[in-house]
């Protein structure tokens, strides 16, 4: 199967910048997968995300999304409806004073017939669990709720890929859980490709694949179990490792159990 996103030797430097932000990224993402990208600030993970819907275009190499070259300006609209993007600050991406009007914004821009917009808006709000709030004013919602409205506003475009650029950085633990659960459900139930950029390692545990970025390059790529078990590498990158992995690692046990229950099972088995 053709990957939905393909990076071919992508380099990127800001026009006025000296330092290269992306240094030759080669990456393929399969349709329907849940990919988490982890890295410290300045590792290039946000820049990577912004290449996926042509907010930025490579200075060298190319990015293909569903066969579209992101540098092709004639296909920009088609590209952006294929890749939905959710950003860090929910306040700065909500455009309307009423939740449902905000969710309608993208389909309205696309010229979707009014009746269909209504259906899409209702479906999107139900999907993120915010249907009961459709008449509310966004500024009175909690951070997690706002971010779910932002997600609804993007999936109302019916994109194939959902890219989230540190969507949980400004949220409390409750809001973080809400967002991660919502995107996980979108991937598992609707088959949407999800790319989640984050610096919270616990949000990567449920992903199919975990990519670690550092200084503009990919330094680890694999299942979350496989990546986290490289404890020394993660520490060198200034990233956290789940306590479960750390304990198993120090006990010299296989580090393939991320959730506490399975991990406890392993340790208990060793005692017997």
């Amino acid at each position, binding site marked *: 199967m053709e990957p939905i996103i393909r990076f071919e030797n992508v380099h990127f430097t800001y026009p006025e910048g000296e330092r290269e932000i992306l240094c030759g990224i080669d990456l393929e993402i399969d349709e329907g997968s849940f990919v988490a990208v982890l890295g410290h600030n300045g590792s290039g993970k946000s820049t990577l995300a912004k290449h996926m*819907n042509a*907010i930025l275009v490579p200075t060298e190499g190319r990015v293909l999304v569903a066969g579209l070259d992101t540098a092709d300006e004639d296909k920009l*609209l088609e590209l*952006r*409806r294929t890749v*939905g*993007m959710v*950003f860090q*600050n929910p*306040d*700065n*991406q*909500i*455009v*309307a*004073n*009423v939740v*449902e*009007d905000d969710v*309608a*914004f*993208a*389909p*309205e*821009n*696309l*010229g*979707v*017939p*009014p009746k269909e*917009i*209504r259906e899409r*808006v209702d479906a999107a709000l139900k999907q993120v669990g915010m249907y009961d709030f459709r*008449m509310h*004013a966004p*500024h009175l919602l909690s951070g997690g709720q706002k971010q779910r409205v932002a997600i609804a*506003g*993007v999936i109302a*475009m019916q994109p194939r890929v959902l890219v989230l650029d540190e969507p949980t950085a400004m949220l409390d633990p409750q809001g973080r859980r809400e967002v991660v659960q919502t995107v996980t459900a979108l991937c598992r139930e609707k088959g949407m490709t999800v790319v989640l950029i984050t610096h919270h390692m616990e949000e990567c545990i449920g992903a199919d694949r975990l990519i670690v970025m550092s200084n503009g390059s990919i330094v680890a790529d694999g299942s979350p179990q496989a990546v986290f078990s490289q404890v020394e590498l993660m520490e060198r990158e200034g990233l956290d490792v789940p306590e479960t992995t750390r304990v198993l690692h120090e006990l010299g046990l296989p580090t393939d159990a991320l959730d506490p229950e399975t991990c406890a099972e392993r340790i208990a088995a060793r005692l017997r």
Partner: protein
Amino acid sequence: MLKDVTLGQYFPGNTVTHRLDPRTKILLLILLIVAIFMAGGWVGNGLMIAVTAVCMIVSRIKPRSIFKGLKPMLFIIVFTSALNLFYTEGTPVFPGWIITWEGLERSAKMVLRIVLLITDTFLLTYTTSPIALTDGMERLLSPLKKIRVPVHEITMMISMALRFIPTLIEETDKIMSAQKARGADFETGGLVKRAKALIPILVPLFVSSFRRADELAVAMESRCYHGGEGRTRMKQLRFAPRDLWALLLGAALLAGVIVLRQFGL
């Protein structure tokens, strides 16, 4: 404190006023404003008070919300009334006083006009969502597109401004608290000192507003915004019989006020 500002607020509801087409409501407001200024005598003014009161009852808007909205305007109201009170010639209330009976009447009418004007405007914004409001404006102004007035862009900007008013108020509150915690003093000193004291609030507010604008533009583009061309609307505006009735009533009111004025009432 700042959170009490009700400018641009919308109270969702399902009254007749809420259901009227926003275009009708904008036109009605214009009719009402003209009528307020046409009302000369106390009968005409009384009629306008009655009409506004009926509108409030029908829309289920509580007087308290109107008072809250009027508070920031208090200065303007007091100022105009004082001006009329002291600078109108006529018969003094007491011999030798600067205040005249004519001044009292004019001042009272002026205050009444301003209060009615603001109240009626609030009735529109309280019962109409900003999106519907700007949508209505865009439609009403659309003939201007022919002479290349960027109607869509203007109404889009208005609706964005309305959207961000509560966000910016909240932010101003936060910055003020933070600077107060660092010992900033906004309450004492002369005019110059107080103006200077605003710098620690205004600079962060501007900086963050620019950042917001930047991020918002990227987010809007990511959601396929490319101007008004080819845009559809989820909520279609449709004139219903009630809109016709409402406009007819509004026109009749204006005509009535003009007739009353002829008779000096």
